């Protein structure tokens, strides 16, 4: 007596249940980056302190964290103390990418020149780092956000782990927590460092590269504004 057309709702529903069941085992918040295990995109950007430009090539041979931040970013303020504590405790260099520090709202009163943008970004970032602590070895200014695009920045903050060969090995979206650092980042860092030292890659002596992670004083040559 069963007619096929009356089975359609049941069949559709069963398909749906299968998808729901599979979907349940996946984490919707986990966003894989296609850049994992590929070379970190190269760039050359002015540093915050104005001591010339920085390129990730300079850090070949080190395992380092690349952290995207901005003073306008609310979650960064939440993340910041975690990074400051991490920098004090662990010897992993952190490079900051100051992402689109100058927002369209800054240009309410007319467009700004690149120079004035740079100086405003520097002034604001200095003040912010002075107030909240500075975990960064250095920070670079990505005013137009192009480097951010190359790295597939999804939202600020984001953190990348880059290995001795300049490959992205890990990406975290959103504020890092002490748990993420202890359970995901540090084990990977140790593994990568071990890997590097057995491969006898140059410049792998970890301690030699460590810079003091105390809050840095600001170069006096940059007067605010």
């Amino acid at each position, binding site marked *: 007596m069963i007619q096929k057309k*009356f*089975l359609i709702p049941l069949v559709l529903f069963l398909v749906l249940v299968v998808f*729901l069941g599979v*979907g349940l085992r996946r984490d919707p918040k986990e966003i*894989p980056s296609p850049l994992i295990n590929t070379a970190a995109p190269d760039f050359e950007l002015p540093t915050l302190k104005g001591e010339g430009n920085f390129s990730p090539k300079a850090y070949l041979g080190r395992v380092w964290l690349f952290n995207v931040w901005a003073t306008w970013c609310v979650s960064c303020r939440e993340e910041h103390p975690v990074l400051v504590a991490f920098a004090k405790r662990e010897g992993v260099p952190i490079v900051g990418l100051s992402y689109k520090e100058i927002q369209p709202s800054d240009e309410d009163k007319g467009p700004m020149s690149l120079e004035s943008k740079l100086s405003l970004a520097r002034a604001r970032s200095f003040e912010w780092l002075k107030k909240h602590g500075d975990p960064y070895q250095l920070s670079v200014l990505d005013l137009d956000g192009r480097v951010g695009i190359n790295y597939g920045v999804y939202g600020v903050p984001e953190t990348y782990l880059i290995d001795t060969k300049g490959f992205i090995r890990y990406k975290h979206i959103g504020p890092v927590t002490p748990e993420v650092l202890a359970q995901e980042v540090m084990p990977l860092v140790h593994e990568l460092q071990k890997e590097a030292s057995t491969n006898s890659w140059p410049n792998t002596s970890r301690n030699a590269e460590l810079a003091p992670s105390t809050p840095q004083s600001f170069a006096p040559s940059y007067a605010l504004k």
Partner: protein
Amino acid sequence: MLVELGHFALILSLLVAITQGVLPLAGVLKSNALWQSTARPLALLQWSLVAFAFAVLEVAFLQSDFSVVYVSEHSNSLLPWPYKMAALWGGHEGSLLLWVFLLGVWSSAVAMFSKTLAQDMVARVLSVMGMISSGFLLFILTTSNPFLRLLPAASEGQDLNPLLQDPGLVIHPPMLYMGYVGMSVAFAFAIAALMAGRLDTVWARWSRPWTLVAWTFLTFGIGLGSWWAYYELGWGGWWFWDPVENASLMPWLVATALIHSLMVTEKRGSFKAWTVLLAIAAFSLSLLGTFLVRSGVLTSVHAFASDPARGIFILVFLALVVGSSLTLFAWRAPTVSLGSPMGLLSRETFLLANSVLLSTATLAVLLGTLYPLIIDALKLGKLSVGPPYFNVVFAPLMVPVIFMMVPGALARWRQAQWSQIKPFLILPFFAATIFSLGLSLWMGHQDAGILLGFWLGAWVAFASFQQIAWRAKQGLRMSGSFLGMQLAHLGLAVVVLGVTGVKNFEIERDVRMGVGDQVTLAQYHFKLIGVKEVRGPNYKALRAQVDVTKGESESVIKTLAPEKRYYLSSTMPMTEASIDSGFMQDLYVSLGDVLNGDTPQWSMRVYYKPFVPWLWAGVLLMVLGGLLASFDKRYRAPILSGDKEEGADQSLGRESSHNGDSLPVASTPLA
């Protein structure tokens, strides 16, 4: 001690619910009248036990008993008492308890207001509801027990999520859940009718008022949720096509189709299989909504509580309930007769078309909601589906639905005559054309989409006015059903006008403002007068004063006071927007972060939102219409026992004299 009693009452209620799910149904199968007659007392007993557990948890909240884990996690001694009470449904465990409690309210209502329903049908209906209740009680007791103790007790609670500390939370979830859970009644009636093989007009007649009441609650709940999101989240939007919003919209769309399809089944004995399928779908989508919200399978702004272990339980439960219902449907539906013939131009045609379009819209929303999950499950990547998809797919489906509301309400059953409908279309047609042209000229911007939106809203509104006026002039009695339908249609028309207006004419500006700065939107000037610190019972806040002037005038028409609140128990600052609602528009200001510079500045959102009050007014009209229709006297009249399968023609005969769903033929053209 009291808490343990509450826990115990919940365990007892599970046992009673299982009995309620099994015994009366066994009585039907064995033709045992005594067993069947246990359905009503068991349903009432089960609800009393759940109600006791619910009351115990409320007492624990009011007394700030932080030796209960759930209370300590969702309340705080400083919380004002209405929020302490509402905190019960501020978390996962309590939400489920509320769910089961409301299911008990519906079961008991069915038990009490079904005196004239045959005993075997009462037994079947209440058994089905008992089974649903058992599932949820088992879920609560095994995975989400709100009565767990915390030893040693916490000295202070962690406080309710500040986002939820709002009058909206006090009423939004209970209203929405009343709607969700209310769909279980239509579902239980449909399953009972399928089991009995009696998909007749009596069944449709019984289902109608229950479905209408549930629809009314659902409408109100969705409206409240939208209103809450609009002014509490501080984003200035009223609908985000968020998975959780979609989860409530889908049952609403299907329920809307269902109340219209039930009408055809009652009056004409047609569309029976379709109506049953809609009844099953409406409740299934409510369950699916619960699954989506509670399992965390989709990310959403609403994901307060997500836990995959709980997700598996709900998924299995969903599969059992919906799977067995659809199996029953596949088995029994082919035996259903097709019902009375209908003409191409008839009320049935319009209602069928609307029903199909609403179901299509539901599927489109379902697809958009689950698409990211499906793609992820197939390992094709991660993506999200945003408002552009929904707007593009949803709006074109709604256009014919809204257009047909007018002829659908006018056409007679079986075979309508064009000449009889036409006089009632002319006035709304021209009135809507003039109105929409005038309104868009006045708003100062025109395009085809805006004109169409305004036209459709006005078309339905003018038609409703005209039909009510015509009846009043003829001195005809207006039944609750008739007035309810017209009001609900008018409400939807007002919502359509509101959506068209706000979508096309809103102005949003994110600005940085210092004291004394001014920003102008439309003809309104917003001036920041100052920002000061204030204290609330459990928070500190920064409150800005923004004076609004209009046009050339210097006089302040309104002072807005948006706040940024820092709750003592939370690190997350909360935005309290300040909104001035007028008849035509909202002026909306929210305070953002302080931006340090030489002089302090604040980032502020200043919005001009025309027509937003229309959305809420439209929802209220729909709710009023739903209530009027639900309490039509007709549903309280006894049903003739012979009014079964062959009752289609009988009810047709009754229609013209007994109720006023359709307009009698106009003897003289109006327009």
